[in-house]
C-alpha cells in the first residue's frame, strides 16, 4: 500500500486515530469533558481529512472506492456527528453516568458509516454496516436508568441481527450465482448468471435489498423504527436518522448502480411496491402520533420512500443518469440537514426529560423560545416540501426525475403521501403558535419550571446558535441552490 492510498483513506485514518486516543485517555484518566474535546477534535480532523482526500480519489484495493461523491457524504456525516456531539453534551449532563465510552462508541459508529459510504465490495459493506450498527446498539441503550432505551436497544439489536443474517445469506447466494463479491464484478457477470439461473441471483439480491431495507426502515421492514426512535436518547435518534440511514442509502445506491441491478424488471417492480408502501403507510401512520420522535420516525419512512423513486427511475431511462445522481445527492443532503435541524430543537426542548417529547410540550414555543420554534418550523416546512426550503428543491428533483421516467404510479403515491404529510407537519407548527396560557394542562408548577428553563436558556445559548445555523443552511439551500446544484453535478 503506497502513500497515495493512505492519503485517500485520510478520514478513516483520522477517525481510527481518534478512537485509539479515546481508549488511551480512558485508561489514563477518566474525564468526560476531555473525551468530549478529543472527540470534537477528532471529528474536525476527519473533516479536514475528507477535504484533503479529494486530491487522491481512487479505488483503494477492491474493498473501498474513494471518490468525490463518497467524500461529500463523508463530510456531511461528519457534520451530523458533530451536531450529535454538541447535542449529547446537553442531554447526558446528569451526574453518575460514565460518558467516555459514549464518545468512543460515537466515533466507532461514524467510522463504520464512512466505510459503508466508500464500500465497493460486499465485505466492506458488511464490515461498515456492522461496525456502525453494533456501536449504535450500545449508544441507544446508553442511559443507565431508563427502561425504554434498553427496550429500544434490544429491539434494534435482535431485528438488526436478523437483517444482517438475511443480508449475509443474500451475499452467499449472489456469490454462488456469479462467483463475485465486488459490485463491479457482480455487474459484469450478473447477466450471464441471470440467464443460467435467474432464481438464485434474484433471491440473493432480494435478500440483500431486504437487509438494507431494514436499516433504511422502508415498509415492510419498518416495524422497529418508531419504538427505537422513541426509546433512544434524542441525540442518538438524530444520529440514527441521519448518519446511519444516510450512509446505508449511499451504499445502496452504489450497489444498485454498479451491480446494475436496475436491469431486472421483477426486482424493480418489487422496489416500486416498497416505495409506494413506504410513502403511503409512513405518512398515514404518522398522522396519529402524539410523540414527536415517533412522528419523525414515520416521516423518515416516507422520505426514504420518496428517495427510492429516484433509484427506480434508473431502470426506466428517460432521465439522465447525471440528473438521477444529482437528485439523490440533493435529496439526501436536504433530508440529513433538515433532520438535524429538527432533532437539534427536539433535543434542546426535551433535554433529559424524555416525557417532554409530546407535541403538547411544544405548545406556545414561539413565544417562549422563538429561535428554536423558527428552526423547527423551517424544518417541518422543509420536510413538507414547501418552497424556499431545501426539502422543496429535493422534492422538485424527485418529481422531475419521476416525470421524465414516466413513473406515474409512484408520482401519484408521492402526491398523496405529501398531501397527508402536510397535516402532521402543520400540527407541530400549530402547537407552537398556541398561546402559552391557553393550554389547559399548563399548570402553575409547569410555568414555574419554564421560568427556570428560561433562566437556563441564557447559559445554553449554544443550542440557539446551532438552531440558527441549521435553519440558515436549510433556507439557503432552498433559496439559492445554484452553487450546490453545480457542485452536486460535478461529483
Amino acid at each position, binding site marked *: 500500500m503506497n502513500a497515495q492510498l493512505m492519503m485517500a483513506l485520510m478520514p478513516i485514518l483520522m477517525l481510527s486515530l481518534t478512537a485509539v486516543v479515546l481508549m488511551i485517555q480512558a485508561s489514563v484518566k477518566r474525564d468526560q469533558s476531555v473525551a468530549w474535546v478529543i472527540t470534537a477534535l477528532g471529528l474536525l480532523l476527519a473533516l479536514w481529512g475528507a477535504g484533503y482526500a479529494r486530491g487522491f480519489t481512487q479505488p483503494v484495493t477492491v474493498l473501498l472506492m474513494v471518490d468525490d461523491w463518497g467524500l461529500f457524504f463523508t463530510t456531511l456525516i461528519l457534520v451530523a456527528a458533530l451536531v450529535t456531539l454538541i447535542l449529547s453534551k446537553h442531554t447526558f449532563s446528569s451526574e453518575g453516568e460514565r460518558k467516555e465510552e459514549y464518545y468512543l462508541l460515537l466515533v466507532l459508529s461514524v467510522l463504520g458509516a464512512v466505510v459503508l459510504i466508500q464500500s465497493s465490495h460486499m465485505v466492506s459493506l458488511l464490515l461498515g454496516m456492522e461496525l456502525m450498527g453494533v456501536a449504535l446498539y450500545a449508544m441507544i441503550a446508553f442511559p443507565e436508568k431508563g427502561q425504554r432505551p434498553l427496550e429500544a436497544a434490544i429491539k434494534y439489536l435482535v431485528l438488526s441481527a436478523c437483517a444482517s443474517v438475511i443480508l449475509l445469506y443474500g451475499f452467499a447466494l449472489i456469490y454462488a450465482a456469479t462467483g463475485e463479491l465486488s459490485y463491479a464484478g457482480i455487474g459484469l457477470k450478473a447477466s450471464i448468471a441471470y440467464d443460467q439461473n435467474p432464481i438464485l441471483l434474484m433471491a440473493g439480491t432480494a435478500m440483500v435489498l431486504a437487509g438494507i431495507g431494514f436499516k433504511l426502515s422502508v415498509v415492510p421492514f419498518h416495524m422497529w423504527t418508531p419504538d427505537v426512535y422513541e426509546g433512544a436518547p434524542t441525540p442518538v435518534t438524530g444520529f440514527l436518522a441521519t448518519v446511519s440511514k444516510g450512509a446505508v442509502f449511499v451504499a445502496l445506491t452504489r450497489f444498485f448502480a454498479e451491480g446494475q441491478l436496475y436491469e431486472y424488471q421483477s426486482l424493480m417492480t418489487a422496489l416500486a411496491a416498497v416505495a409506494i408502501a413506504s410513502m403511503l403507510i409512513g405518512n398515514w401512520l404518522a398522522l396519529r402520533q402524539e410523540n414527536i420522535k415517533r412522528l419523525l420516525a414515520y416521516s423518515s419512512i416516507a422520505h426514504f420512500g420518496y428517495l427510492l423513486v429516484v433509484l427506480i427511475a434508473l431502470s426506466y431511462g428517460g432521465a439522465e443518469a447525471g440528473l438521477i445522481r444529482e437528485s439523490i445527492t440533493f435529496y439526501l443532503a436536504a433530508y440529513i440537514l433538515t433532520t438535524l435541524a429538527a432533532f437539534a430543537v427536539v433535543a434542546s426542548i426535551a433535554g433529559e426529560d424524555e416525557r417532554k417529547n409530546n407535541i403538547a410540550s411544544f405548545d406556545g414555543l414561539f413565544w417562549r423560545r422563538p429561535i428554536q420554534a423558527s428552526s423547527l418550523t423551517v424544518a417541518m*416546512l422543509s420536510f413538507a416540501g414547501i418552497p424556499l426550503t431545501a426539502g422543496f428543491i429535493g422534492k422538485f428533483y424527485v418529481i422531475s426525475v419521476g*416525470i421524465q421516467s414516466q413513473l406515474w404510479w409512484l408520482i401519484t403515491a408521492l402526491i398523496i403521501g405529501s398531501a397527508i404529510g402536510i397535516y402532521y407537519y*402543520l400540527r407541530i407548527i400549530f402547537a407552537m403558535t398556541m398561546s402559552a396560557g391557553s393550554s389547559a394542562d399548563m399548570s402553575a408548577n409547569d410555568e414555574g419550571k419554564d421560568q427556570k428553563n428560561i433562566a437556563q436558556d441564557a447559559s445554553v445559548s449554544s443550542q440557539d446558535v446551532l438552531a440558527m445555523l441549521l435553519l440558515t443552511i436549510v433556507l439557503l439551500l432552498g433559496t439559492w441552490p*445554484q452553487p450546490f446544484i453545480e457542485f452536486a453535478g460535478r461529483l
Partner: protein
Amino acid sequence: MVMVNLILILLVGGVLALLSERVNENMPRRVALAVVLFDLIYFLIHLSGMPELTQLQAPLPDDPSTWLMHFKADWIPAFGISIEFALDGISMLMVLLTLVLGAVAVSASWTDVIVRRGFFEANLLWTLAGVLGVFMALDLFLFFLFWEVMLIPMYFMIAIWGHENRGYAAMKFFIFTQASGLLMLVSILALVAVNQSATGQWSFSYFDLLNTPMAEATAHWLMLGFFIAFVVKLPVFPFHTWLPDAHTQAPTAGSVILAGILLKTGAYGLIRFAVPLFPQAAMDFSYVAMVLGAVGVVYGAVLAFAQTDFKRLIAYSSVSHMGFVLLGVYAWNELALQGAVMQMVAHGFSTAALFMIAGGLQERLHTRDMREMGGLWQQMPRMGAVAMFFVVASLGLPGLGNFVAEFLVLLGLFQVDPWLTAVAALGLITGAAYSLILMQRAFQGEPNPRLADQGLMDFGRREMLTMAVMMLALVGLGIYPQPILDIAQPVLQSLLEVTP
C-alpha cells in the same frame, strides 16, 4: 426592478413592523399602513411615468418587450429558472387591488388585533408580498413559489388570531391549497419536461412555454393539474369546502385579504396560465368548467341563504360570485372575460367591506350569529347605511361595479350557451334573497332586547374613511367602468388570439 421593489418593500416593511412593536405596541399598525401606502404610491408614480398607459397596445404573449414592465434575472440557471416578472393590464389591475385592499386590511386590524400586533402586521405584509408575486411572476417556478409561500403567513394569521375554531380552519385551508398545489407542481414540471425534450433546453419562463407542442392527451392531463389548483383557490363547487371555514374563522383583516385578494389569484391563474398554456385542451374542457361555474353560482347562493353566521353567509356568497368569474373565463369571449376581470375587482371591494362590517359587529357584539342581532340600524345608523350600500352592491344593483361585471358575464355567456346563462341568471335572484335577508336579520326588524342598553359604538372616523374609499371605488366602477375595460381589453384581445 420596480416590480422587485414592490415586493421587497413589503417584505422589509414586515420586518420593520415586527420590530417596531418593541417601541410601542401601537406602532406596528402605523408602520404597516405607512408601508402599504408607500408601496401603492411608489407603484402609481411609476405607472404615471409610463407613456404606454395612454395608448395601451396588446402585450404579445410571446414577446415580453411589448408588456408594460418586464424584469428578468438568472436564479437557478441549471434548470433555466429565472426571477422573471412582467406586468400587463390585468396584472396591473390586480396589483392595484391588492395594495388598496392591503391598506383596508391594515385598517381592519386597527383595533381588532390586540395581542402580538407586530407579528400580525408582519404576516399581513408578507401575505401581500406573496400575492403581488403571484400576480407578477411569469417564471412558472417563481409563480409556484409565491403561490405556496403566501399561504404560510396567511396560515399563521388564521391559526394565531382566528376565532374559536381556528386550528381546524387554518389546517383545512392549508391542506386544500397545498395538495392542489402539488398537482400544479407536477403539471409544471411535466410541461417543462415536454418543452425540454422538444427544444433541448430547460426553461420555466412563461414566454418559452407558451405554444409547447404536445400530444392531446398530455395537454388534457396537464391542463387539469393547473385547473384544479386554481379552482380550489377560486373556489368552485365541489372544491369550496375550505372557504366557509377559513373565512369565518380568520380575523377580520385576514378575511378581507382572503376574500378580497387571495381568491382572485385563482381567477388570475386561470386567465394567465390554465387557458393560454393549453388552449385546445382548455377549450375542450370549457363546457365542464362552465357547468361547474353555474352550479357554483346557484349552490353558493342557496347555502348562503341558509346561514345564521354573518361571516359564513358572506363566505358562501363569495362562492356564488366566483362562479360568475369561472363562467366568464371559460366562455372565453371578450365580453365575458371583461366581465370576469370586472367581477374580480368589484367583488374584491364589496366582500372586503362586508367582512369589515362583520368584523365591526363581532368586535362590538362578540357574536356573529344573526339570531342574536336585529334592529341594529337604530343604534348604529352609520354602520347600517354602509351595510345597506354594500349589500345592494353585492346583489348587483345597477350603477355599482358588481352589476356591470355580472351583466357582462351573462351577456358574453349568452353567445356561448343560453341555457347555462339562464341557470346563472338565477344567481342574481337568489343573490337578492340572501343579501336582503342578511340586512333584514342584522340591521332591521325588532331590536334585540338584549342589545338595547349596551351603548354600541357606531362606525368611527377611521372605519368610515375606509368604507368611503371602497364605496367610491364601487360607484366609480359602476358608473364609469370604461377605464378598467380599456386597460383589460388589449390583454384579453391578445389572449383570445392564442386560442383556436
